[in-house]
């Protein structure tokens, strides 16, 4: 059998990449383009007809102030969360690779919040904020303080706190891998050359871990931008719709307000924004990566 024939190569390709390719098309590509088509209709989600409306949805989406304010809120939330998640994750990773007693136990411990689904986690924390913290406050000050969740800034603070608590453990694992990937001899060489350990960390270890940073920031950014479950269970957009994130607004628009076409349009805009931010960040992050 000739192994360099085109048909043979095609066959080989189809055999290995075919199933995955078909699945990818079926669950990603086709729905994506179908969704794209729906952005040009004023479909309500259940009707048999899907009236074509051209670019109306795009115009309406750009004029939807509630959407843009939810998006603005999401940006603020994401920037703060991403920074905190990565800072905390990095220090946790440093801690559990520095050889402290029971570091495997701590690794597992910090990772556990990730195993709890966002919905359950939200309800648990809601209880903590509404009851436990209020009771503690009452015991300390004598008067019952308001729950953090009932104020605008408080609700955002709670969202960020819980996100950091949830994601830091996961990102920690990637940083742990990054720390392990740095050859000890390089660090030792730096120390012998007269660096103190802070400078060795800053000039040798961190540059070599650049790939971990790129990955972690990308993952945490996309996760934060798309946050929905936590938003739903912890604050449900309250108080006064002041903690509605972009994904929640899109869901409401599509399903609650029955503007499926418009919800789809807003979801697409959100997707484009995420894709651009993600791609830029990965591009600039990779650019200066040091090959170890």
């Amino acid at each position: 059998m000739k192994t360099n024939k085109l048909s043979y190569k095609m066959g080989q390709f189809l055999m290995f990449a075919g199933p995955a390719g078909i699945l990818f098309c079926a669950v990603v590509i086709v729905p994506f383009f179908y969704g794209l088509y729906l952005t040009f209709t004023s479909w309500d989600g259940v009707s048999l007809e899907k009236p074509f409306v051209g670019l109306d949805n795009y115009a309406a989406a750009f004029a939807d102030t509630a959407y843009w304010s939810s998006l603005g809120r999401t940006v603020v939330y994401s920037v703060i969360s991403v920074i905190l998640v990565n800072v905390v994750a990095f220090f946790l990773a440093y801690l559990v690779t520095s050889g402290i007693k029971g570091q495997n136990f701590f690794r597992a411990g910090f990772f556990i919040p990730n195993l709890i689904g966002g919905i359950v986690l939200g309800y648990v924390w809601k209880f903590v904020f509404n009851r436990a913290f209020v009771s503690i406050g009452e015991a300390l000050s004598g008067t019952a303080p308001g729950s953090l969740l009932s104020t605008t800034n408080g609700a955002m603070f709670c969202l960020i706190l819980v996100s950091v608590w949830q994601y830091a453990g996961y990102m920690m694992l990637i940083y742990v891998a990054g720390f392990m990937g740095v050859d000890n001899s390089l660090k030792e060489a730096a120390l012998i050359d007269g660096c103190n350990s802070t400078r060795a960390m800053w000039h040798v270890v961190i540059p070599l871990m650049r790939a971990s940073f790129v990955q972690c920031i990308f993952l945490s950014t996309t996760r934060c931008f798309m946050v929905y479950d936590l938003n739903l269970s912890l604050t449900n957009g309250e108080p006064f719709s002041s903690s509605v994130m972009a994904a929640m607004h899109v869901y409401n628009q599509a399903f609650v307000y029955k503007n499926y076409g418009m919800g789809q349009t807003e979801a697409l805009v959100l997707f484009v924004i995420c894709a651009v931010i993600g791609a830029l960040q990965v591009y600039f992050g990779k650019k200066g990566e040091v090959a170890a």
Partner: protein
Amino acid sequence: MKSWKRIGSTILASVVALGMLTACGGGGSASSGTKITLFNSKVEIETQLEEMAEKYSEEKGVDLEVIYSGDVVAAHLATKYASNDPYTISMVDAKDVYSLAEEHAVDLSDESWVSDTDYAVSVNGKVYGFPLCVEGRGIIYNADAIENITGEEFDPADYKTLEAFEGLIDELKDGGMESPVGIMKEDWSLAAHFLSEVVEQQPDADAFVEQLQAGTADVANNEKFNQLFDAFDVLKDNNYAKNNAISAEREVTEQKLAEGEIAFMFGGNWDWSVINAYDYTENMGIMPIPEDTEDGTNEKLLGGGAKMLFIDNSDATTDEQREAAKEFLKWLAEDDEGKSFIVETANLVSPFKSNTLEVSDPLGKSIKEYADSGNLIPNYDYNPDDYITVMGAEMQKYLAGEEDRAAFATAYEDYWKTATLSGK
């Protein structure tokens, strides 16, 4: 090493095979009867419905399956219709019937139960929605808690004006009940249930909404708006969670009411399902919102038919299934067992005149009394789809004291100018 791999793959294969078996297993044991599905969107009767369905299936030779979902009803049905797998019977709100009926529902005009109820939902002269129950809202009171302090028997009719009601609140406060009221912060309670009364209590609700949409209504000076908000202010000022109104949890509020720690709460007879989870007193009821008015609205509760059932008319449902579904509706309305299920098992107020069974829960009793004597102001069913979210948020601001009445009135006017009515 190798043997481990082998064991692993054997286990994996058996798990997969087992999964396949169970996937097919469901259909095998089904009875020969037609299989119909019922979508339930009323969580408080989930267990009762399931038990009823099991019994019904055994007796009638029809395989009835009840499926519950807590999703937004329209969103849930959208998914089912998108996957071409609709329920035979779906439980929805009246406004969903208005928007879904013409395309998706079976015409029920010829059914025998239609003449037996005032609450069926019709679109263009055809009946599409079967009313499951009558629900009403007003101020829930705990008479025992009040009588313990006043020492007299509590008759809600004595407190229909706001002045009298405030007097009672002061009396309760003097008697040691620090804050006699609870307010639920949920947007559906604040917007769909309380705020909607501003429209519903108008002499002509539709005309008022038209004015609102045209931007010609002067809300800040509207009599009904002010009367209702005067009442709301009294409730708000005496709210047990005054400093923390937006994080007050429903369960806590209802528990306080059930146990008599507070005496009043704005709500409806559906709240019984939460109240009865606590150490409750039977001596409760629902009274109209106290208002200083002559128009009689302070003697009526708000309410009407709630939760409509409609039958799917798409190709995914066979004629046999539709017949079986019609039979089931008829059973609910006319058969003795069906009647008893609605009233005695599910604790609902039946919307059918021929169903004279006595309602067991005290809140339902109140609703039935008001309904029977014609003292229910009808629901306004056409609130826009984003009404609960948008106006609910404004109501929360008002409740939290972040917004005064004038600002609220402006927000309310602005909202209606761009609002699209649902189902009209």
